């Protein structure tokens, strides 16, 4: 039997302490989308190195023989996966499944999941951080960018919620 989720305020406190530790130990916040970017950069670098060297975008990640996979953000997201797995194992929530509303098909759910990923990470690259990197970490250091991004994300999600309501409720 799977365990119940932690009380949200307790979980928030735990997350806040992790964020505080990141600030105290490394002088930086948390991040997730940055790690995805570095994965892509290293894939592109491995597949088509001349293209990467030519592009204004990729080339800066290969300057001076830098290795995009050996990067704080990339290692951090491996940690996220490990930590999530650990927590799932402890609370007996490990299970392969597609989570969706019973009113929609698996294919529909997966198509939208894919599209959501595309949009989210594209926007995160533009805003230089996602909900964790820009909004959460930004708010914790009182950065204006953090608050603006947070309001934009939640505001827009509420705006679009009506259009996608069939997917969820």
């Amino acid at each position, binding site marked *: 039997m799977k365990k119940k989720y*932690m009380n*949200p305020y307790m*979980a928030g406190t*735990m*997350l*806040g*302490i*992790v*964020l505080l*530790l990141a600030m*105290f130990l*490394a002088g930086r*916040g*948390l991040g997730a989308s940055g790690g*995805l970017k570095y994965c892509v950069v290293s894939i592109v670098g491995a597949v088509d190195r001349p293209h990467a060297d030519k*592009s204004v*975008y*990729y080339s800066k990640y290969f300057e001076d023989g830098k290795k995009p996979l050996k990067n*704080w953000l990339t290692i951090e*997201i491996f*940690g*996220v*996966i490990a*930590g*999530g797995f650990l*927590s*799932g194992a402890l*609370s007996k929530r*490990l299970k392969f*499944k*597609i989570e969706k*509303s019973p009113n929609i098909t698996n294919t529909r759910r997966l198509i939208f*999941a894919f599209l*959501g*990923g595309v949009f*989210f*990470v594209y*926007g*995160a690259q*533009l805003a*230089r*951080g996602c*909900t*964790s*990197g820009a909004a959460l970490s930004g*708010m914790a*250091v009182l*950065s*204006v*960018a953090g608050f*603006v991004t947070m309001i*934009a*994300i939640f505001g*827009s*999600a509420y705006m*679009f*919620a009506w259009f*996608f309501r069939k997917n*969820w*409720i």
Partner: protein
Amino acid sequence: MGPISSLISMPEWLDLLIALMIGMGFGFALEQAGFSSSRKLAGMFYGYDATVIKVFFTAAIVALIGSQLLSYFGLLDLNLVFVNEYYVAASIIGGIIMGAGFIMGGFCPGTGLCALSIGKIDAMIFFLGGLTGAFLFAETYPSIQKLANGYYKGPVKINEVMGISPGLFTFLLIVAAVGMFWIAELAEKKFARPDITNDI
């Protein structure tokens, strides 16, 4: 006196080990909060589950209080902690695109990774989509470079813009958050969907 990384020049392996440990804590906290479930996350936008706002604001406020106190006790130099730089257009437009992605996919990158780690297949597809998104951004970067780098304001802090002390701003934020928590729990009752919440 923190941040430790600026205090001593850490060897690379230690720096990356810290990254791994922080990442693990991050993933663990997200999963424990229930962010590995897209339907729980989406509940935020339909009112039946407001965990997102509770966890999100509690975390931001705890880190904010903690860092202010550490700085007060002379243990952390906040001038050496990274402050996100403010690109007005990029932050707003990026945020709007992210919001759309959030409601479509039901995850944000961090929660997606953590859902993927416990075997959610939709999260794996979300992750693939994320990689595609990052790839698309890199390829379209030359044409949106101007937008991405325009209206640059630097690493501005919100309390400095408002002209108040960081402590006072934190207090105001807490007051706002407490109000939101209260509204969120009222909404959870009003829009309750036991069929969904019992399922996740």
